[in-house]
C-alpha cells in the first residue's frame, strides 16, 4: 500500500519551493529564517490547520513582498534600495491622498518612514514596523492601511486635545446639550429599536453606521461594500423603511397602539432635524469633510 508524503515533507517541499520563488536569498534571508516566518504567519492566522491547508494559505501570500519587507526589517541594504525605489514615492502619494494637504502629508509620511526603518528598540534590537507585514495583502495596500491608521490615531488624539479657547470660538461650549430628550425615551422604544437593529446583518449595520454616524458619502460606502452608490442609496431607504416597520411592530407587541407607536417615532424624527448634520460637520479635518450632495 503506497502512502503520500507526510505532512512534514509536504510543508518542507512547499517552503523550499516558495523560498526559491520569492528571491529571499537576495535579501540575505536564510531558508530557516524564511521557514520560521511562514510558520509564524500560519500560527497567527490558521492555527492548528492541517498541512495541506497551511500550504494553500502560504501560496496565497504575497511571498515576494513578504521577503522584501522582512529583508528591510533585518536592515539589509539591497532590500532597502528596492523598497525605496518602489514605495517611497507611493508613500508620499498615499499620505497626500489621505490628508489632502502637503505639509501634513510630508509629516505623516516621514513619521511612517521612520517607523518602517525602525527608530525604536526591543531587547537591544531595532524594531521595524515592516516586521509586522504578513503578506496577506499587497505591500502597497498594507502601507496605505498603516498610513490611514496613523492618520486616524493622530486625528482622534488631536480631537481630544482641542483647547477651551478654540471651543469657545467655535461656540461648542455654549451649544445646547442634546441629552434632554434622551431622558424622556420610553424604555419600550429602546428595546424595540435594539431588537430591530439586532436583526440586521453586519453589512447592513455597517452601511447604516457609515452613512449616519461617520457621515460617509454613498460613493465611499459603495466602494467599501463593492456595489454602486445608487445601490447603497436604495439599500439605505429599504433599511430605514424596514427598521421603522420593525420598531412599530415591536412597540405594538409591547402594548402600544399602532398610532401611538408611529407618533412616538414621528416626534423623535422631528427632534432629529434640529440636531444632525450640523454636529457631524464640526471639527472635521479635510479627509472627513465631504459633501453628501456631491458625492
Amino acid at each position: 500500500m503506497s502512502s503520500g508524503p507526510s505532512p512534514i515533507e509536504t510543508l518542507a517541499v512547499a517552503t523550499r519551493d516558495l523560498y526559491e520563488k520569492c528571491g529571499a536569498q537576495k535579501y540575505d534571508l536564510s531558508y530557516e529564517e524564511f521557514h520560521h516566518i511562514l510558520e509564524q504567519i500560519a500560527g497567527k492566522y490558521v492555527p492548528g490547520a492541517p498541512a495541506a491547508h497551511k500550504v494553500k494559505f502560504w501560496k496565497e501570500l504575497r511571498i515576494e513582498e513578504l521577503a522584501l519587507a522582512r529583508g528591510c526589517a533585518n536592515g539589509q541594504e539591497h532590500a532597502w534600495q528596492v523598497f525605496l525605489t518602489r514605495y517611497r514615492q507611493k508613500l508620499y502619494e498615499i499620505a497626500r491622498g489621505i490628508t489632502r494637504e502637503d505639509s501634513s502629508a510630508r509629516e505623516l509620511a516621514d513619521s511612517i518612514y521612520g517607523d518602517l526603518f525602525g527608530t525604536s528598540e526591543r531587547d537591544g534590537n531595532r524594531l521595524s514596523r515592516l516586521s509586522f507585514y504578513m503578506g496577506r495583502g499587497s505591500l502597497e495596500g498594507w502601507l496605505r492601511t498603516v498610513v490611514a491608521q496613523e492618520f486616524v490615531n493622530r486625528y482622534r488624539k488631536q480631537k481630544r486635545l482641542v483647547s477651551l479657547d478654540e471651543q469657545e470660538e467655535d461656540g461648542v461650549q455654549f451649544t445646547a446639550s442634546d441629552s434632554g430628550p434622551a431622558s424622556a425615551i420610553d424604555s419600550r422604544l429602546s428595546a424595540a429599536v435594539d431588537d430591530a437593529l439586532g436583526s440586521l446583518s453586519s453589512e447592513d449595520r455597517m452601511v447604516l453606521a457609515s452613512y449616519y454616524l461617520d457621515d460617509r458619502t454613498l460613493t465611499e460606502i459603495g466602494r467599501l461594500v463593492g456595489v454602486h452608490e445608487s445601490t447603497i442609496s436604495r439599500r439605505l431607504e429599504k433599511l430605514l423603511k424596514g427598521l421603522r416597520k420593525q420598531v412599530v411592530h415591536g412597540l405594538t407587541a409591547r402594548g402600544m397602539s399602532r398610532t401611538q407607536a408611529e407618533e412616538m417615532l414621528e416626534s423623535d424624527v422631528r427632534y432629529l432635524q434640529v440636531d444632525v448634520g450640523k454636529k457631524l460637520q464640526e471639527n472635521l479635518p479635510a479627509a472627513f469633510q465631504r459633501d453628501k450632495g456631491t458625492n
Partner: protein
Amino acid sequence: MPEFPTIVRRRLQAGEDRKGFHPDADTLTAYVEQLLPGHERDYVTRHLSVCSECRDVVTLTMPEVTAAAEMPEAVVSAVPTESVSVMPTMPRRRWFLTPAFGMAASIAAMALGLTFVLRLDHERAPTASNQQPRQEIQARNENPARNESKVAGNNQSVANPAVQPAPAPRITAGLATAQVAQQRNSAGKPKSVPADSIRAPQPANQPADVADLRRDYLNSQLLFSSSATARSPDLPQAPQPMFPRALNLHAPALVGGSAGAGQTNAYLQVPAAGQPQAAGEFYPRPGTPSSSVIDKLLDASKLPLHAKKLAPAIRAKETEHLSMFSPGLSLADSSQAATAKGADVSEAKGELAQSQAFTRRALTPAAVARLDEPVIQWKVAQGKLLKSSDLSSWVEAYPASEGIVFTVVSGSGPDIWAGGSKAALVHSRDAGATWDKVRLGVAASGDIMAIEGGGLTLQVKTSTGQTWVTSDGGSSWNQR
C-alpha cells in the same frame, strides 16, 4: 433619503462599544483587496459595523482615495522614483449573480424578444387589415372631395339609406379641418414621396436588422442644420425630416466617396465653403466613419438582433489615458524618473517585473486588457504590406489588386499608416481590418519614403523631396 430617527442613531452608537479587538493592518488590507476568505470577511464586517475607527481606516485605505494626480511636483521631485504606477484595483462584487438581477434580466429579455417578434410581424408580413387603412389614407389624399362625399354618404346611409340628403355639416367641417392639418403637416414634403419610401433603402442581400442598425447609427451621426453652410455636391436633396427615423437617406451617397482635388478628406467629403444649403438639409458630422467601414464592422461583428441600439464599442486601450490611475496621469513620468532616479534602478527594474504587486490581479482592467491583446507586427517586404501576430507567419494585409507597391509602414496599436509608390497612402484605424485611401494632394509625387509622427499630427516624406504634414489625423494635408 428617509429620516433617521434619533433613537435608532443613539442605539446604533451605543453598539459601538462592543467592538472587541481591532483587526491588524494585514487583515484590513486583505479585506479591502477582497482577498479574505468568507468567514474572516464576515468577522471583519461584523467588527466594522461597530467600530468607527476601523471604518475610517478602511475608507481612507480604499485605493481611489489616494489621488496621485493631486501630488504636488515639489513633493514628487524630492524622492527617487520609477516610472511604474499601477494601483491595485478592488474587484467588484458579482452583483449580476443576484436572483433579483437574474429575474430583471429575464423579464427584459422577454420584453425585447416580444418587441422584436411584434415588429417583425408588422414589417415583414403586412396583413390585409393593416394595409387597408394605409390605402384609404392615400386615396383620401388623392381625392379629398370624394372622401368628403363618401364620409357624408356613409353617415347619411346610417341615418336614412333611402334618401340622399345634403352632407352633414359637422362631419364635413371636421374632415376639412383634418385635411388642412394634413396639408400643413405635409408642407415642404414632396407629395410624390409615398409613405413607404421614407425608409432608408436597403441592399437586397443585407438583412433588415443590420440595415436598420446601420441606419440608426448613421442617424445618430447626422446633424440637422438650416444655416447656410457648405455641403458636398453629391449629397441628395432631402426633404424636411419630421423625425430622424424618417430620413430619406442613402448612406453610400452621404459619406465616403471619392476624394476631391487639393486638400481632401478620405473619410468624409467636407464640402467647399460658401455653397448655400437648403433648410432641413443634413450633413454627416465630421469624423463620421465611411459607410463601407460601418458595413464591414457590422458584418464582421455579426451583432445579435437585440443589439440594435449599441454604438461601436470603445476599447479600453483608447480611453486609458482618461483614467484617473492611468500611467499618463501619474506624476512618475519618464522625465521625472530621469532626474530623480536613485541608484541601482536597472536591477530594481528587473525585480519589478517579478513583483507580486504587479500581477494580473493587481493591474487595472485596462492594463489586463492590454496584456491579453495580441500584438500585431507590421512590415513591408517586396512591395507588399505584411502583418503578423506571432512573428512566425506573415500575411498580406492590403489587397494586392489595388496595385500599390508599398515602401513604408508606420503606426502603433490599431492606427496604422502605410505608404507606397506614386504617393499612395493608406490608413487603417482598426489594425488592418479596413483601410482608407488617403490623398496627400494634387501636387504629391514620388514614392512615400517616411511616415513620422502619430495620432493627429503626421509627416510624410516622398522620394521627390516633398514633405506633407497633417495636424488633423489625415483629413487635410499641407505641403511644407
